[in-house]
């Protein structure tokens, strides 16, 4: 028999740590979607001509900075001392994933805005320039120079978005993955897993728009590949925990057979990965153009993955105080 008691009862810490909530899960999800939009649209620019792109797909990148802003708002709301948030940008701390993330987020804005401007159809871009010119005539010359510069740097903008998006996607996983004190999170697989999930949810998010059939088929195929990779990464992550020490093994059981297992197996693995993969596969096999249902399911699964990992991870830790000694 081992009986352990403590006089500590600090809110947010006891009986188990619960400092991060839905805001963090929401931010990680939106960060992943933004990463997906940037990487996939950047890759699209590198591999396809501009004529291949429908108007709706061309306008999707404008939503990246908007989604990112919502995510950053959630992150800001999670801070306990919100008016010190500017402190993130007074220093760069190379060992702190959160510091890396703060600076990466800052780079995401110009990169995603340049991408959005580049992919905007000519007619709309000219209209926007005329509209601004009508209100701020002095800015016209400068804006035209920026416009010409962006249009002249297609490949660079595409690469910057691929790399910045990948950095954002990996960082959302590393933020948790580098926490050695939380066995469920402390895995090198979490970075690639969150990146892959981000790319997959990014593709799913783009599929919610009214795209051309050929775009739908291509994005769905990409998403199917990403789902397969994500399933493999989830398996590697779980196997890694199962074959680790006692603490990581206990952490794994939280997901596989413990209190989080119903949500994990049904929402993440079933609803979010396996069922949409099968649905996409059947649709493609029968020559149908993929609809939005599978994409919606992938998005729900992607959010559930982050929600469950954020919450379940906080239940894991080094066993309470000196109880570990017995």
């Amino acid at each position: 028999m081992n009986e352990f008691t403590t006089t500590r009862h600090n809110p947010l810490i006891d009986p188990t740590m619960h400092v991060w909530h839905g805001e963090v899960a929401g931010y990680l999800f939106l960060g992943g979607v933004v990463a997906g939009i940037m990487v996939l649209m950047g890759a699209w620019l590198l591999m396809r001509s501009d004529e291949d792109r429908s108007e709706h797909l061309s306008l999707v990148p404008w939503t990246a900075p908007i989604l990112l802003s919502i995510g950053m708002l959630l992150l800001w709301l999670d801070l306990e001392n919100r008016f010190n948030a500017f402190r993130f940008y007074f220093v760069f701390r190379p060992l702190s994933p959160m510091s890396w993330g703060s600076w990466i987020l800052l780079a995401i804005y110009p990169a995603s805005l340049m991408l959005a401007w580049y992919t905007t159809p000519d007619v709309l871009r000219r209209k926007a320039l005329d509209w601004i010119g009508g209100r701020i005539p002095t800015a016209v010359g400068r804006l035209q120079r920026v416009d010409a510069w962006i249009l002249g740097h297609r490949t660079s903008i595409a690469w910057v978005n691929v790399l910045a998006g990948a950095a954002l996607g990996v960082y959302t996983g590393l933020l948790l993955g580098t926490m050695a004190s939380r066995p469920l999170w402390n895995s090198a697989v979490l970075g690639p897993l969150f990146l892959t999930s981000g790319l997959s949810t990014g593709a799913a998010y783009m599929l919610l728009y009214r795209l051309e059939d050929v775009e739908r088929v291509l994005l769905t195929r990409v998403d199917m590949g990403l789902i397969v990779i994500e399933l493999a990464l989830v398996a590697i992550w779980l196997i890694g925990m199962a074959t680790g020490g006692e603490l990581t093994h206990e952490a794994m059981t939280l997901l596989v057979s413990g209190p989080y297992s119903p949500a994990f197996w049904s929402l993440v693995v079933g609803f979010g990965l396996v069922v949409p993969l099968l649905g996409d596969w059947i649709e493609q096999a029968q020559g149908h153009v993929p609809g939005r249902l599978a994409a919606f399911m992938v998005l729900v699964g992607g959010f559930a993955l982050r929600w469950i990992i954020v919450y379940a991870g906080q239940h894991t830790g080094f066993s309470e105080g000196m109880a570990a000694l017995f």
Partner: protein
Amino acid sequence: MSEKRYAMAVDTRTCVGCTACVLACKTENAVAEGYSRDWITTAVSGSFPNLQMSIHSERCNHCENPPCVHVCPTGASYIGPGGIVLVDHDKCTGCKACIAACPYDARFVDPRTGTIDKCTFCVHRVENGVPTTACQDVCPTRSIFFGDINDPDSEISRVLRERDHYVLHPEAGTRPRHYFLK
């Protein structure tokens, strides 16, 4: 003379878990109501009649390799004088990454400021030449030892030399400077 390195040791043979250290800390450091920087843990193991009980007075371990300092994105968590791990409240955003990173769950959010609070080894006393912490002063069984482990003549150096001791979760790789005497 080498640089000072402060550490604490708790005698698990003589500690009776009276919580005087907890109350003294709360008073000395005006800790927020309902929160505590140090605490008592009691572990009972075995099967009747072969039971054993061990009592710990615990707090921040002021690690040599503090994950809380590494993850802090603003530099608010830092290693202060004598290796004491401290929080600069002017820089703290309350992001709680340090709470998540601490294997000992020794940190909490002070509801009055929204910043992180924890044991400071009574650094305000140490810096003013007071050689003891509040918890140590009040301990009725003299179970708490505090001092410079780089000074071979200090009391804590002596007890660590003479007594078997251990730290919590050495496997975490944090190299704690809070010891427990067997």
